[in-house]
């Protein structure tokens, strides 16, 4: 912990001009977008190309503009990461300034940033050329978190730069987009472990005073499914437990041993074996699902710097279906975690973890209440939130999940705690825009649900409510056995009978 970086406890001791917290936080549940981006939206849409791509594109897609004052670069020993949009506590900056100072272990941080940028710039499934989204950085006072989400929606990556690696001044708290393009990637690749490196997150005064106007402006699609997936990762990982921790040599051996044929195939299972890991053909208790191991390639360059590889996953039984998994490298002063979806062709958006939590309106209201109480804490203390909001622990827990769905909290597996951030995207995170839920409501309206005791019928499908939860005879349920969220029939039946 360096002297100048405020610790989490000092968070509110940070010099913010009085009352800013409340003022910059609008009443719409804490979601906030700087005026510039929001105001630019109608013009963006009007100027958007009329032609639509030929492949099927979700109609639920919005445009997002990145406006950087200049490209991120490394100049004179300063890694200048440029920012655009998002939320900052101190001032509603179009290009917020979060941090200036030194980073220790520069080589590791640079390699980690490269890895995060690579995930943001890749579609691991069915690569289609096209615009991709930049990573997001959150400044929580004592640490910086860089998050990215792959174009295919199946890989989430986060680099936590902890206080041990930072030595400098925090100017503001918040979340923003950060420009990490190919030119910066090339510069980052050249950073050596012993090089002294200064870091600036945001435009420094010099840039602000010498440049006028936006130098880099790109527009990208923000498909609804991408946004939803990004937000949903935290809900899914919150149910994970550590399953294995292996030394880097063994981790390297294992990850490099996965053959290219294996990479193309479906999900397999990984179990601890002595000090190492091995593949297994079935989900014995303690196993972790691994699908598309090439999605972990971003970990390889960092392995020589790491202390250990830790693997997380949900509890499984021999009949489990493929599930998500998290792979975390412990590095000097930093942590890199990569979360994989259950299968190569499955994005997180369709995993349906949302659907268990959107039952009542109460969750949304509670989430809104809690959202207003948060100020980019590196750890969200549920007890404290309960005290301040006056909600019961149960309601706090589901409300935090609700916040996760709207992208307002992330989950830190290493600390087993939520952290606050606000994904810097507009409007698209509405958890209600779920096609399955929409279809279910339509079924209810059409009167297609008939309930008979513990059974229900919806358009020729049979739904049963048992002690192990609901189940349905439709194809979706047959294929995923509830491991990918409830189907519309079950949701419709639940809407009619009320959740059990």
């Amino acid at each position, binding site marked *: 912990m360096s002297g100048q970086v405020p610790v989490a406890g000092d968070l509110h001791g940070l010099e913010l001009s009085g009352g800013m917290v409340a003022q910059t936080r609008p009443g719409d549940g804490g979601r906030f977008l700087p005026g510039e981006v929001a105001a630019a939206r109608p013009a963006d849409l009007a100027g958007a190309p009329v*032609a639509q*791509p030929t492949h099927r594109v979700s109609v639920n897609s919005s445009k997002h503009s990145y406006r950087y004052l200049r490209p991120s670069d490394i100049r004179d020993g300063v890694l200048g990461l440029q920012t655009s949009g998002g939320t900052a506590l101190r001032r509603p900056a179009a290009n917020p300034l979060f941090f200036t100072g030194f980073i220790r272990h520069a080589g590791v941080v640079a390699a980690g940033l490269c890895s995060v940028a690579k995930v943001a710039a890749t579609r691991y499934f069915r690569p289609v*050329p096209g615009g991709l989204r930049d990573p997001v950085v959150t400044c929580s006072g004592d640490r910086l978190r860089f998050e990215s989400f792959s174009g295919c929606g199946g890989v989430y990556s986060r680099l936590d730069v902890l206080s041990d690696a930072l030595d400098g001044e925090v100017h503001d708290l918040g979340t923003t987009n950060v420009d990490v393009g190919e030119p910066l990637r090339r510069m980052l690749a050249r950073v050596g472990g012993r090089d002294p490196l200064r870091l600036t997150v945001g435009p420094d005064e010099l840039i602000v005073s010498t440049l006028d106007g936006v130098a880099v402006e790109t527009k990208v699609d923000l498909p609804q499914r991408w946004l939803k997936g990004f937000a949903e990762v935290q809900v899914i990982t919150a149910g994970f437990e550590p399953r294995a921790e292996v030394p880097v040599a063994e981790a*390297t051996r294992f990850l490099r041993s996965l053959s290219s044929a294996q990479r193309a195939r479906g999900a397999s299972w990984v179990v601890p074996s002595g000090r190492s890991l091995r*593949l297994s*053909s079935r989900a014995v208790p303690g196993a972790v699902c691994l699908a598309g191991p090439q999605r972990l390639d971003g970990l*390889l360059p960092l392995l020589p710097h790491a202390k250990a590889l830790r693997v997380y996953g949900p509890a499984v039984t021999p009949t489990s279906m493929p599930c998500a998994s998290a792979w975390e490298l412990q590095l000097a002063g930093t942590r890199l975690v990569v979360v994989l979806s259950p299968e190569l062709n499955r994005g997180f958006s369709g995993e349906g973890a949302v659907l268990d939590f959107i039952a009542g309106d109460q969750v949304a209201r509670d989430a809104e209440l809690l959202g207003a109480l948060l100020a980019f804490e590196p750890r969200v203390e549920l007890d404290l939130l309960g005290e301040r909001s006056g909600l019961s622990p149960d309601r706090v827990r589901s409300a935090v999940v609700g916040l996760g769905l709207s992208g307002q909290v992330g989950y830190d597996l290493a600390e087993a705690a939520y952290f606050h951030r606000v994904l810097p995207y507009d409007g698209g995170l509405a958890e209600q825009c779920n096609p399955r839920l929409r279809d279910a409501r339509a079924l209810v309206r059409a009167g297609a649900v008939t309930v008979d005791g513990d059974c229900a019928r919806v358009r*020729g499908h049979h739904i049963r409510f048992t002690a192990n939860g609901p189940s349905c005879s*439709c194809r979706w349920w047959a294929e995923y056995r509830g491991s990918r969220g409830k189907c519309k029939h079950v949701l419709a039946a639940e809407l009619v009978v009320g959740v059990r």
Partner: protein
Amino acid sequence: MAEWEQLRSLLEAGDFRGIASLLRDLTEAERKALAGPLTEFARKEQGSLPFNHLSGLSLAGAGVLPSPSALARWIVRHRLYTAYIPGLPPLFELTLDLLRARGVPWLGDLARRLTVRLRDDTALVQLILGLVAISGIDLPVTDALVEGWAEVNSHIAPAALRPEWDPLVLRTFEVDNVGRFLHFPNGTGVRDGTGLGLSIVALTTEGRFDRDEVIDRCLAAMQRGGRPSDVRGYLNLYNALEPQLPEVVARLRDYVAVLAAAHSTVAGMAQRELFRADDAGQLEIGMFLDASRAAFLRSEKKLVQALMDRLRVVLARQPGAVDDALRTLAAVFDHQATDLQKRALDLAVAHAPAASAETRNELASAAAGLPADFRALAGKAFGAAACPTLAVAAALPAPPTRELPPPIASPAELAEEIAAHHANAAFVDPVRFERLLAGLVALSYQDRLSRTGPVVDDINWDSWLMHTLSEHTELRFANFVAGTPRRATVKARYPDIETFAGERGWQQKLSQSYGLKPYSASDRPGILMLRLHEISIGLVHAPRPLLLATPTSSTGLLDPDVLLDRLTNAATEEWEPWRHDLIQALLRLPTDCDPSLASRARRLGTAAGDRLAQWLAEDPDDRVTALLPTLCRGRSGGFGIAREFRTCWPAVLPAHRDMVAKHLLPELTYTEEARGGGRLLIALAEADGPVTEEMLDALAYGLSARHQDERAAAVDALLVLAARSQLDGAALGRRIGHLTATSRQMTLARVGQCLQDLARSGAAAQTWDLVAAALPRLISPSVERPPHGLADLIGLGVELAELLHPTGDIPHLADLAARRGSSRTVTEARRLIAGLQGVP
């Protein structure tokens, strides 16, 4: 409308040239008049056009459609396919000509719109490039255009690379899946001067592209990685540029980054260049150590070895860096290859006296994971180290047990199970399938019995059944059954199905599928198929309240008392069990039944009871063998050709896995194609019966299977056997030794990897027995060339000997160790002998 009729007949005839000349000289008003009929035609009658005439619509559209937006959509929809006709120019050229002749002002706009919609279509790329050239707009450089452009121009000559394409050239280094088009057409050696990669090199030499920029982009592309073929393209280009020493020295960090992540060929290049800089005295030691750290855990032994050799030279030159160097070197102690560990150790030991005490402590703790003999050396040089952490699991994992789910209780649940059965069609899970069959028979019976209860009226049992059974196979199960369901009662006799219309035809088809021609009455398909067929008919014509053969354990075993209960039930309710159901029930009995069971069965006084009693009186092996002639017909050992049902076979004979293994061995042997064989091995390991030679062979082939997940399943199977104390490591080792020496389908290197996993997962003792028993056959003097992977296998033996301290002698090992030279095999043999004699 005469013109439309003319255009229409040209479209139908696929006369592209005719279309082009017809539309070439029309006025805009005439074009406009044709647009309506054309779109109408495309909407309604497109299907009547032959496939290779379809793209005539694109051409016609280019002649008549009024706006760039409409035309872009139109062309993308109808593509630009050309059937090969001698003398006919490609369709994109005709289209381009036509558009040029039209003289509309929006060709640039059209090009941009087409670019947005471009997906993997080289003809469209050509059209876009042509439109850009005509209209003079700036190239819309998108990833898709770069990829398509590179594909179209992969054989281009330098002179043909137009200056306006330069932005595309620079982007080829940044777009995925493009590197492959930089490949030199005649391989790397021959340079005839053409090809995209060589053209870029030539123009770089001429000065059109900035040489530094191209080298930088090349290195960046290699750092980014991707498919091997793409990376090779960039590597070839890089090599063709022949970078000079100053250029290399200016980019040292880039090579370190390549070394950390890239494919082996590329990593080799990076190492070569770093060494080149070092030779010239331009590589600082700090950078060299960074490079070493990045590469020391790579699996390419040559790479690591060369780095260590270089480290020795560097240390001789700069003794002051010894501490940093040795700390970096310690990473190799964790390498999987023992020969590399030894080299690193020797190097570290040689330099340890010059290092600080702190460094020596670090080396000592890093050496704690080394094998015992190396550890002893390390102890002398670096001081005492902490005890090694155990690299293996102490205990075997208990095999996952699987509770039988309760029977299907309601039609809704049955509907769910049937849907699940169809959804997961790749492999049938025997537990769930038997549960499904039991539910189907029982619920269908109850449903017919009482029309008053919670009846699900939209379930058509017969069609359900038919789908359940027939969707998996082309054998068209029981397609006549659904015809006239009768209100048969439980007492109905099972009909003589030979008299059924269609039955004979079905059987004929079945036997043909089995490769038996012509059909004769004695040809019988496997018991599984017969039973399913029997159920499909029985449900309609002779319903029964339950199936006899439904297992009571997840491996397929049937509790004899439960069978007796079911037979008692039948006797009381006066129904006769179905024939094949009874046979299957008998096959599922354990080999050791309570002797009193026979008399209790006979007391029932029914034919089925007598059959059970008779079965129990017979010898467990003979009685099954006697049934086998009807089981073992056909290609797949008589178990039926429906591959997705293969996983059910161990549950057909759950107490006789030896017989299942015997019949399925031919399938398991073809390791290259035997997908799903691993699941069978696990099922066999969980079943009962002796572990015979066939089963050992099946396991051995499983360990050598081509696919990694199949091998993993074989390891799982061995762990199950070991946990049940049924794994005779020595017997399996002898078979592995024998098969490696005699069969070309065994790959020892793959087996070795699996054995390591096996040993680490708690079966160390069994693995040692296995290795010790496999070695004599593999190292005997009669073997001319030692198989690939032998050294690793002996190395595994060394590791296990250290752990287990076994006694005994391995034949021929001393001879091998006494051979001259220091090949890895010989070195490991010497270490193993030392380990067996207890010499650390």
